[in-house]
């Protein structure tokens, strides 16, 4: 048992922290977030050059990491910097799908993703799927050698700027079946694809995707037809390790800002941190953050275990990060008072992202129910 990171990972962490401190101020970040694509191609290229995208891939795939703790340590720092570039969309979701399902020529794209010259996105969730991973109504009907795809995809992270989309569709079975799902890799320019991009409340970008009689050639299919579910689940698991790690970074920024504020803000002639009502709220926040960190360590460390153990740990981390993320965000705002309500002060941007993480890939309630069902499968 060892709770220390390897030297390589500590170097990675320090490098990201330094880059963010030097180049990624909050004001600049907000300006970039408000741009058309919602992130900076320049910065993305620099991240690629530093090897940060490659850190999300195994050596086999041309990267130099890819394990749970590589994801965790990188995303914690990205959280601290409130980074908007498409690490989750392209690196984790797109990358995992390609890595698990792609054939030799499809996998060639991974090198471009790692180089930052190509971005991917996963178009999986649908307007009525909530967070349910197997709920897919979008259909793919065989058509000659290829397929005709119809349906809608919802809140696709960075799908509006992606060069390629990975679209999931049902080739057989009922709406909620795990079996019968296929994944297709297609250029964003494919005819019949309608993409409506928009900003999100926490400074990211997403899109709605309509597929109207989209004709896809046989070469677009990723992996075996109807067998995409395990890769979707794994991509989501890795995304949740990333997001919960990001949440830890965000929590610690909120924590540090609040501690400093409690030490310096004076009311009734004393620093407000002298008031026990606030001290005890802060102590709860500090205690719960350690719980969240432990849950994320468990998920990152169990990412290679059997499915049930892996997914239980992931759901558990998402539940704790969701519950505690909301606690930290709300308490940080409340303890600051009015100043936290302003755009300019900064805290709110971290708080918004922290709360919205619960809306990506399953919230507290969804993952609690999922944990219960996984526990029953194990019994």
């Amino acid at each position: 048992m060892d709770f220390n990171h390897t030297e390589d990972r500590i170097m990675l962490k320090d490098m990201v922290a330094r880059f963010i401190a030097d180049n990624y101020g909050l004001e600049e970040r907000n300006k970039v977030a408000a741009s058309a694509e919602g992130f900076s191609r320049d910065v993305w290229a620099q991240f690629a050059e530093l090897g940060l995208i490659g850190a999300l891939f195994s050596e086999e795939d041309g990267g130099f990491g890819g394990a749970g703790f590589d994801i965790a340590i990188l995303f914690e720092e990205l959280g601290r910097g409130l980074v908007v570039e498409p690490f989750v969309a392209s690196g984790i979701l797109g990358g995992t799908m390609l890595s698990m399902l792609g054939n030799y020529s499809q996998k060639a794209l991974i090198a471009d993703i790692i180089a930052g010259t190509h971005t991917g996105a996963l178009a999986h969730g649908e307007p009525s799927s909530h967070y349910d991973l197997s709920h897919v109504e979008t259909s793919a009907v065989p058509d000659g050698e290829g397929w005709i795809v119809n349906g809608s995809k919802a809140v696709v992270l960075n799908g509006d700027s992606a060069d390629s989309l990975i679209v999931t569709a049902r080739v057989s079975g009922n709406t909620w079946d795990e079996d019968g799902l296929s994944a297709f890799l297609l250029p964003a320019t494919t005819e019949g694809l309608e993409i409506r991009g928009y900003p999100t409340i926490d400074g990211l970008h997403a899109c709605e995707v309509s597929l109207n009689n989209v004709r896809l050639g046989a070469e677009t299919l990723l992996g075996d037809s109807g067998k995409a579910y395990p890769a979707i689940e794994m991509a989501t698991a890795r995304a949740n390790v990333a997001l919960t790690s990001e949440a830890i970074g965000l929590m610690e920024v909120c924590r540090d800002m609040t501690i400093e504020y409690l030490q310096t803000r004076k009311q009734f002639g004393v620093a407000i941190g002298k008031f026990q009502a606030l001290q005890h709220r802060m102590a709860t926040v500090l205690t719960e953050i350690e719980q969240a960190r432990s849950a994320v360590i468990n998920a990152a460390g169990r990412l290679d275990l059997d499915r049930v153990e892996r997914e239980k740990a992931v759901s558990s981390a998402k539940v704790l990060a969701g519950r505690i993320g909301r606690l930290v965000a709300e308490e940080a705002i409340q303890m600051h008072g009015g100043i936290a309500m302003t755009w300019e002060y900064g805290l709110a941007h971290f708080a918004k992202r922290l709360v919205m993480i619960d809306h990506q890939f399953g919230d507290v309630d969804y993952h609690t129910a999922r944990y219960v069902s996984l526990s029953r499968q194990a019994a």
Partner: protein
Amino acid sequence: MDLNYSEEELAFRDEVRAFLAAELPSALAEKVKTGKRLVKEDMESWHAIMNKRGWLAESWPVEYGGTGWNAVQQQIFDDESCAAGAPRTVPFGLKMLAPVLIKYGSEEQKRTYLPRILDGSDWWCQGYSEPGAGSDLASLKTKAVRDGDHYVVNGQKTWTTLGQYANMIFCLVRTSNEGKRQEGISFLLIDMKTPGITVRPIVLLEGSREVNEVFFDDVRVPVGNLVGEENKGWTYAKYLLTHERTNIANVGANKVSLAHLKYIAENQKIRGRPLIEDPIFAARLAQIEMDLDAMSTTNLRLLSSPDSVANAGPMSSMLKIKGTEIRQALNDLTRRALGPYAMPFVSEALETGYNEEPIGPDYAAPVSQEYFNNRKITIYGGSNEIQRSIITKMMMGL
């Protein structure tokens, strides 16, 4: 980062398992697992078995007869002991007094008292709290006045756990009213048979007798029984609080409590189906289990971290808070799982040798009394509110 036990740690765990399988009497384990009341002889016999193996003083250095185990080994031992149904060792001498003696006691005190803790000659109890000094321990008033070769002690201690079994008590007493309150406190070892000491039981809310009041009326204590220096007792008492890192979260006991709750929830039925399948109940259970899994890792993070007080202080307090909150949540959900059968309370059913038919399911009898009894855990050892104040003081300098 590696969440798995190392080869050495696994080998150690196997050794512990083998010991427990061979040496833990099954009747005793059965008593523990079914929530029966343990009597003095139960605890003494388990101490003797552990001492024979050389494992009683798990946290002491080897030179004083301890195991020399590191913190992770101690945690493994605790997990395994709990899982096997071993009784908890009595902490007052082993875990509360001994570390203070080892660090601050005279050679003679160490030579005299440490072996007697190991072989069971002495049963210690703790004289800290007073009727007017609970969470604000430094306001204690029991006073010790020097008179030749003796201190004369007058006052009252309370909440003295298992004081009815003890022949020795370690006390915080006031030896000075000058300066800061904390600087007038001394640490005294007192023989319970000394004339002037009276022990009176306090019956707790669920009817149990585990705590006492101890009265001191002109009790003469040899000055040789002072630990360390006069008026430095607060430092010694605090040393224990900030250095006690093992087992503060009671992870092993919490895991056993969770497993027992699952067993009950599988056997309780609602509309013909096991209660554990009820979605609301299952969600409550899952949330506790997820919290416990995270806390178990928080605990190991603390145990494997370098031995720095700066880190141990707030983390210990956090673990005390989480460990007790989780335990109370488990006790609460276990009680609710029983439905109406949480109500019947036949106190004798908790005694060994009770042969009547149980009322309701056989696991029901101890559940509600444990729920009520464990309201104490967020109050004692520095209430959870005191812990919160410690956390902010240490982490925010406020």
